[in-house]
């Protein structure tokens, strides 16, 4: 305990001896300290009798001088004479008792306070989530396959030509009207799909059956140029449509990252499909550890090669829209339980959906029931943004959504007019 020793005041480092001048000096110092202490006690007692806290503070500030009560903090208690200390301690104790009697008791603890923020903002787009893409490079290639530094092997036996990946328009998010279109090229993201094909039991005796189904799926995907990549049930990665060409995987779709909004993602996003079937609600699609591993190293390779932010790796259910009824979720691939974490990404289900907050799309109860709870976070964040934006503009939400939809129609028209003959926006 510091400063519990009362009634003495000695310069730091001074050694006090019993006799002569030292004793007289010690007495003067002690007397001065004692006088100050008594004076402080009186001041404190008088202050305690002033009920108005402002008046009390005024009195204290007028009366108390810092020089009155400070002493070197390093004053060692052991320098005091033991014989004197006993006597002075008695005086001090009496003084302290008096002081304590006059000073009000401390107020009660208020640790139960709970914080309520003044307003709950809609969630900002939580990106980029997940880890930075590790460095991955090609180490080998043959006519049939490519091998990458992270162990990824890309089979090319089903590869076919698509349409060239031409520059596509993107819209700057900082433009409140989303009117500023810029032409970009190269993949800006990845959309994950499911093949929705037949699923034989994942057992050794079913290997032949699974291979036959897988080959049929790949044939179909090649014919329709449905995806850029397919990850089959054994974790094999097949490139079907080369990266610099467009696969017909996302059709009418919308996404937005921190900087840009993307409309119709075939040209701007790569399509990666898992050979599996989407399950409703909270049920997990059947997916093998080999598929997850392959999807992870494929994602790492694509993200590193094209500098794709983690937040732009999303599922088809998150981006798919139906302009004819202005609802989202026309396709529900990976509507819930996509293993974002195991793929090395953040939980992108939490991101608000640009289709809702930027273009006024709606969703119905069927979509909600067919999706997992994780996607609801994004829906909720999107709704919050729409409500907030409408309130800032002083408009009813419905009227504000009509404005957003007009914006979408305008952009859709511009996008279509910019599309080249090889780009297909319908699936």
């Amino acid at each position: 305990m510091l400063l519990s020793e009362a009634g003495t005041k000695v310069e730091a480092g001074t050694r006090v001896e019993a006799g002569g001048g030292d004793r007289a000096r010690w007495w003067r110092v002690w007397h001065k300290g004692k006088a100050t202490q008594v004076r402080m006690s009186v001041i404190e007692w008088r202050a305690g009798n002033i009920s108005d806290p402002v008046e009390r503070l005024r009195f204290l500030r007028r009366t108390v001088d810092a020089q009155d009560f400070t002493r070197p903090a390093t004053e060692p208690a052991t320098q005091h004479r033991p014989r004197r200390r006993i006597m002075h301690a008695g005086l001090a104790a009496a003084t302290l008792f008096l002081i304590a009697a006059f000073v009000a008791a401390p107020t009660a603890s208020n640790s139960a306070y709970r914080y309520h923020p003044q307003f709950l903002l809609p969630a900002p787009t939580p990106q980029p989530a997940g880890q930075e893409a590790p460095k991955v490079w090609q180490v080998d290639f043959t006519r049939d396959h490519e091998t990458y530094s992270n162990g990824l092997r890309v089979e090319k036996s089903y590869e076919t030509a698509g349409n060239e990946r031409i520059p596509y328009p993107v819209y700057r998010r900082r433009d409140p009207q989303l009117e500023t279109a810029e032409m970009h090229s190269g993949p800006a993201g990845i959309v994950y799909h499911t093949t929705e094909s037949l699923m034989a039991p994942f057992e050794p005796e079913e290997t032949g059956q699974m291979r036959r189904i897988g080959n049929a799926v790949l044939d179909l995907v090649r014919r329709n140029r449905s995806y850029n990549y397919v990850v089959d049930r054994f974790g094999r990665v097949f490139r079907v449509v080369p990266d610099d060409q467009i696969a017909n995987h996302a059709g009418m779709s919308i996404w937005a990252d921190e900087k840009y909004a993307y409309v119709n993602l075939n040209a701007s996003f790569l399509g990666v499909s898992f050979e599996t079937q989407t399950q409703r609600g909270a049920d997990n699609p059947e997916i093998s550890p080999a598929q997850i591993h392959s999807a992870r190293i494929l994602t790492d390779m694509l993200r590193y090669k094209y500098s794709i932010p983690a937040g732009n790796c999303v599922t088809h259910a998150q981006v798919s829209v139906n302009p004819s009824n202005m609802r989202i979720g026309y396709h529900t691939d990976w509507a819930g339980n996509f293993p974002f974490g195991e793929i090395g990404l953040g939980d992108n289900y939490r991101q608000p959906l640009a289709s809702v907050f930027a273009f006024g799309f709606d969703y119905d109860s069927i979509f909600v029931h067919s999706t997992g709870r994780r996607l609801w976070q994004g829906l909720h964040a999107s709704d919050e943004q729409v409500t907030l934006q409408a309130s800032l503009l002083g408009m009813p939400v419905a009227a504000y959504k009509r404005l957003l939809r007009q914006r979408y129609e305008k952009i859709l028209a511009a996008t279509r007019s910019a599309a080249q003959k090889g780009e297909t926006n319908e699936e």
Partner: protein
Amino acid sequence: MKNDKTASGALGLDVGTSRICVAREENGGYKFRTELNAFVTIPYSKMTENVLKRENIPHSVQDGKIVVHGNESEKFADLLNVETRRTMTGGLLSPSEPESLNMIRQILGNMVSEENGPRKLCFTVPAPPVGAQDSLTYHEATIRQILSDLGYEVRSINEGLAVIYSELEASNYTGIGISCGGGLCNVCMAYLSVPVLSFSIPRAGDYIDMSAASVTGELANRIRLVKEESFHLNGFFNDKVHQVLGVYYDEMIRTLVQAMREQFAGAKSLPRLGRPIPLVLSGGSTLPEGFRDRFEKILKEENLPVPVSEVRIASEPLHGSAKGALIAAVTDL
């Protein structure tokens, strides 16, 4: 509370890194108004400007851009998905923000310009950060000049002392006041209203947010939202963000208490205390449930050289400093 029901006209101003709070007397009590100490620029359009005017949203037009400042800036930043810009960092005017002076002038003018009467104002200044004793001069002089230009008779008060004036009247303004804000944790020890020791450490809410964001890969803004909405320091964490927040809160508290121990032990002069003194915690960073308990636990572990009778959270943690500044201003009338 003041006994007479007449408002004094004086103002107390807490100029914090993340928020500015003004306190005034009204109907025998205190009234507070808080604004974010931040701004955001948005592209100019006539329609946007008209909307802002119609909604009375504080803004200005500069160099062909609309600058929204104060509370609304965060909403607009969120809509535009950009970060707000801060006029201050680490408790002081930001040297890296070219618009800091201009914007804080606008925010302060918007908050305090409506007063009539004595026009006395007291504003908070941080204590010198440990190891950077001379860094306050420019900040304090600048804020003083801005407020003087608005027609106020201005004085400043140490932020920790303001907490003591606000919360420790029961102990005759003797005790330790700590304000844990966005940029700094301010500590002040006072004896009978006279400050005897004050200092600050540059670890507070922003440090927690940024550190947690760098570990989790989340935006600092999102970390802050999680912290304000659901975080508590009870030792059980639901997810990684909460766990990381717990780690950095612990680090902040421990750094603070260790600094207190060192500063108290190394102080050149301290008053004679006849009894343990109360310690009060204020500021937005003290809001998570369990903060007081964690602080008290670490305080006991560190064996502070000043005996402490109790550790408690301020009755109004977000307004404590402004209220104390107001009390200081009223006392001068």
